[in-house]
């Protein structure tokens, strides 16, 4: 049975059509990157999957069930920093598991330590979110969402505020977690290279209203395992350049209509 399916999904805000009838099939365990110009409707699509916004028409199905209210099956890393200021870094990460009954207190504590280490925040465990940098706050949100153990991760430009080194590390880690735990990920990014390196499949969007401009099957061309060597190879460059062309075409479209 198909896993996550968008069926003729649209979103209209007042008179503004943000998402045109949109169809997409995401198989279980796939990492899909959404690449598109600013304001084209990527966040809107993610919010509809998360159940935070209803589609104006059409539907989104998970294993044939129509998705409505938000729940723990779909975890979200928001584009804006969403760490709770009244909880410490560690408590924020633990918050991801607050409503889970399948874990004991000791297991939760262990998970907190694990995810803190993963995002490199062990030394900041007892710090307040307001006292750390924006990039670190974003890592708190990532760790919290991973700790929640959702089967679908919706990540809205999660690595945008991070430095290049931390970014590359987390790209590899996300890819590893996704492969090991079979998670399905929708990943929004503006960065062509990030999309090519991370995703099994890249969806390039047109300008608003969001339509699919191109679909690139990365795994068919580069394989499922991603390493830093791969990133320096010619195959990767070819793919990156191809995506870049698509992205440029949406930009020139913009100049044409402006």
């Amino acid at each position, binding site marked *: 049975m198909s896993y996550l399916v968008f069926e003729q999904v649209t979103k209209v805000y007042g008179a503004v059509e943000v998402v045109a009838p949109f169809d997409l099939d995401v198989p279980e365990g796939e990492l899909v990157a959404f690449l598109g110009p600013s304001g084209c409707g990527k966040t809107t699509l993610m919010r509809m999957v*998360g*159940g*935070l916004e209803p589609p104006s028409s059409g539907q989104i199905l998970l294993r044939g069930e129509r998705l409505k*209210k*938000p*729940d*723990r099956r*779909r*975890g*979200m890393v*928001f584009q*804006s920093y*969403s760490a*709770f*200021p*009244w909880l410490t870094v560690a408590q924020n990460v633990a*918050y*991801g*598991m*607050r*409503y*889970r009954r399948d874990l004991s207190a000791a297991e939760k504590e262990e998970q907190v330590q694990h995810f803190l280490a993963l995002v490199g925040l062990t030394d900041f465990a007892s710090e*307040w*979110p*307001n*006292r750390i940098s924006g990039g670190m706050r974003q890592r708190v*949100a990532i760790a*919290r*969402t991973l700790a*929640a153990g*959702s089967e679908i991760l919706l990540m809205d430009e999660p690595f945008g505020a991070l430095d290049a080194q931390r970014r590359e590390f987390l790209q590899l880690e996300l890819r590893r977690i996704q492969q090991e735990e079979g998670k399905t990920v929708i990943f929004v990014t503006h960065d062509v290279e990030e999309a090519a390196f991370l995703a099994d499949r890249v969806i390039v969007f047109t300008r608003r209203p969001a339509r699919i401009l191109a679909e690139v099957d990365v795994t068919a061309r580069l394989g499922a395992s991603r390493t830093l060597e791969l990133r320096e190879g010619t195959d990767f460059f070819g793919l990156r350049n191809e995506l870049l062309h698509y992205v440029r075409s949406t930009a020139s479209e913009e100049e044409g209509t402006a």
Partner: protein
Amino acid sequence: MPSRKAIIGTASTLSVLLAWEWASRSGLVSERFLPAPSTVLATLWSMIFGRDLLYHAGISTLRVWGAFTLAALMAVPIGIAMGSFRWVGAALEPIVDFIRYLPVPALVPLSIIWFGVGEGTKIFLLWLGTFFQLVLLVADDVRRVPVEFHETAMTVGAPWWRRLTDVSFPSMLPTLVDNMRITLGWCWTYLIIAEIVAANSGLGFVIWQARRFFQTPEVMAGVVTIGIIGLATDQLVRALHRRWFGYLVR
């Protein structure tokens, strides 16, 4: 080293006091109308022993805190409900808004008819003056909790009632404490009205008694006592705020 702000503050307060002292001592204004600060201070000291000033201050403080606690305990849950559920807000807002605009002194006669001249009237009037203000402030603060916080909670599986306790409440708590500090100040205004009209104890009563015998220094000493209690409470709550909500400091 004291800050520049503290130095300016102290200096200006001292100059006002000195000018006042000089005005009364030099006979520019009659001591009968404006006793010198030193006289007021001496009177205050003697009232502690001669007029049970501390007892009356204690009674007044208890009344303020009692009524205020009652108002806050009711306003917080009701305000959270009003701010969280549109229909609760729509149902209660008209009534609350109406009562909020009623001047408390205008309700003194009604309150005496209902509750007599005992503690009931005082508690009722103070509650009236604070509950309806506080409940609207709480409702507004709840509405201002960032949506991302609620959405984060929803996507980690928080049921709606846990969002009230785990997100809305902690998120608005710092503003709530600030609002409480301000409303607590208003309580004293209503208390003095209530104690002047219907009481045989409390600072309002002491001031009113002193007025009858034209004891201006005692009247002023009573007023100063209220000022001191108010200032001390305010500073205490501010200190607690800094301590509890240190996480807000960037």
